């Protein structure tokens, strides 16, 4: 080897990356294109889909899934799953329902207790995952079933029923209801405040991911945990925070559904945990962690909301929804896989 060789290698110009290629390598691009396609399709197929009334319906539908999908996306970027996220939305609402209707606790205090309890369960999830070294899939599958059982059994023991009734008679209900369950009529459409929550959660999550140290750590612990630890990233703290994040989001969604419908079933949220994961993956999150975006997950939820309501508007059998979701998931995973092999090349 000669000196010239070494100089040539070291100063060799990189291939100029065209801007278009840079945009295409963003995680949320696939979801954005898919969302446009879905919007276009249903707008052409059913006239009321693109009306204000229609938009109010599918945005509302997307919003609660969106809040969860964003939190779950952060967790997945951090390399973990939370299967207890779905059932936790019911868990949080049941706590408020039982504490207020049955024990006469102040509704604000009950809402606060519910938040603390959820964050506690989230921290427990994280603690178990980090201390046992077991896959989070297994640990949170455990808490999922434990919570699902508690939801049903405890609700039945205390109230004798499997749903909470009489929420609207609780003192102070009207003081807190607008925060989670109000809506605004604009041009014939009814827009719920949950849509605003969804946008805010997405904005905050994006800020955290891209512009804070914590965001850097989330990508790092999901991308290469050992390396992160070696370089001094607080792995334990980051992961616990992420599990508490999904739990906090589940609390928010629980409050939204409780105060919008003024009731909650003991089996609320069961089975929805996979929809959150699907939304996150459609939004560009890698199942293996270290890559993804909050905006992508929000778009994934938007797609879900549009497909769900679009099928209803088109008066098709809504049972097809799951088939569409499954197909979308597979397509998204294939796309992501392609992205990852390109970005992780040489490993």
């Amino acid at each position, binding site marked *: *080897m*000669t*000196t010239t*060789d*070494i100089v040539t*290698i*070291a*100063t060799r*110009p*990189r291939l*100029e*990356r065209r801007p278009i290629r*840079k945009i295409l390598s963003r995680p949320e691009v696939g979801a954005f294109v898919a969302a446009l396609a879905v919007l276009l399709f249903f707008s052409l197929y059913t006239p009321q889909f693109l009306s204000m009334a229609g938009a109010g319906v599918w945005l509302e539908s997307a919003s609660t899934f969106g809040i969860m999908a964003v939190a779950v996306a952060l967790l997945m970027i951090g390399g973990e799953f939370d299967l207890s996220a779905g059932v936790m939305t019911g868990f949080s609402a049941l706590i408020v329902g039982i504490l207020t209707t049955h024990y006469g606790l102040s509704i604000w205090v009950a809402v606060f207790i519910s938040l603390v309890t959820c964050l506690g369960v989230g921290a427990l999830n994280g603690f178990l995952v980090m201390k046992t070294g077991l896959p989070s899939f297994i640990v949170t599958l455990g808490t999922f079933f434990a919570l699902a059982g508690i939801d049903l059994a405890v609700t039945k023991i205390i109230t004798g029923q499997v749903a909470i009734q009489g929420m609207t008679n609780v003192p102070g209900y009207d003081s807190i209801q607008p925060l989670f369950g109000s809506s605004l009529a604009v041009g014939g459409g009814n827009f719920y405040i949950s849509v605003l929550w969804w946008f805010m959660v997405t904005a905050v999550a994006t*800020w955290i991911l891209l*512009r*804070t*140290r914590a*965001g*850097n*750590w989330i*990508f*790092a612990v999901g*991308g*290469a945990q*050992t*390396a*992160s630890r*070696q*370089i*001094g*990233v607080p792995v334990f703290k980051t992961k616990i925070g992420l599990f508490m994040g999904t739990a906090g989001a589940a609390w928010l969604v629980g409050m939204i559904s409780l105060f919008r419908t003024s009731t909650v079933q003991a089996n609320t949220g069961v089975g929805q945990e996979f929809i959150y994961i699907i939304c996150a993956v459609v939004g560009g999150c*890698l199942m293996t962690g*270290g*890559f993804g975006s909050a905006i992508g997950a929000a778009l994934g939820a938007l797609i879900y909301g549009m497909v769900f309501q679009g099928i209803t508007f088109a008066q098709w059998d809504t049972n097809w929804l799951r088939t569409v979701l499954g197909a979308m998931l597979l397509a998204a995973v294939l796309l992501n896989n392609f992205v*990852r092999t*390109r*970005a*992780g*090349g*040489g*490993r």
Partner: protein
Amino acid sequence: MTTETAAMTGAHETSKPVTIVEVRNIGKSYGAVNALSGISTTVNAGQVTCVLGDNGAGKSTFIKMLAGAHTPSEGELLLDGNPVTFSSPRAALQAGIATVYQDLAVVPLMPVWRNFFLGSEITKGWGPLKRLDVKAMKRITQTELGNMGIDLRDVDQPIGTLSGGERQCVAIARAVYFGARVLILDEPTAALGVKQSGVVLKYIARSRDQGLGVVFITHNPHHAYPVGDRFLLLNRGTSLGNFEKSEISLGELTSLMAGGAELASLAHELERSMGPESDIAAEVGREASKN
């Protein structure tokens, strides 16, 4: 290789080297098992100390003691002339001893600049508006890599898209930027091809010329000799010698590494089992008697 060798060794003739780290008769045993014993060497500012040895010779035990991951069970570790014990890798890092491990501690999917500052991010603002100073971090990454002679057009590309040698260099540049005085490189050329190894050797020379003390762990004497000032040879947990460059030639180094005597007996063994006219036996015999 000749011009390269001259360029690598010529630039740093100093009158009296300053010793940063000295190890005296250091050793490590796990229970009754003696992993390493009686090792002595020095790491000087602006010089490269090469640690050579085959697999299982004790190289990694040795660097783990330097890096603070293991505490020595015997002997002394001196930093700037004072005895020290490092309780953790972090303590060693704070004393300015940085280790670049074989897996480099990089996150392949993250951009180069995020990897560069991972765990030590620069922030601006305060409270909820405390945010990453992206511009400054990108600029510093670009400059620091430029100083190492790597010109990246785009520090936003995932570090996984860089070549092995370039990634190695980013890890080295990162350690240097964050205040390392002693740089421990664990087999940086082991997984690399000839050209990439050359690039890494060049950066080792460059770090040395910036005044760092470099500990270069390798099993390849041809990589060690051009950049090294001092050679510590390990074999089965003991020191085969700690040589200044003037005391040993590349040939002697290679022969010691290969274990001259062991090679001769291997040749004999092969000759017996495969017959005296066997090509392989003759080849090994020639290799053994060469030095």
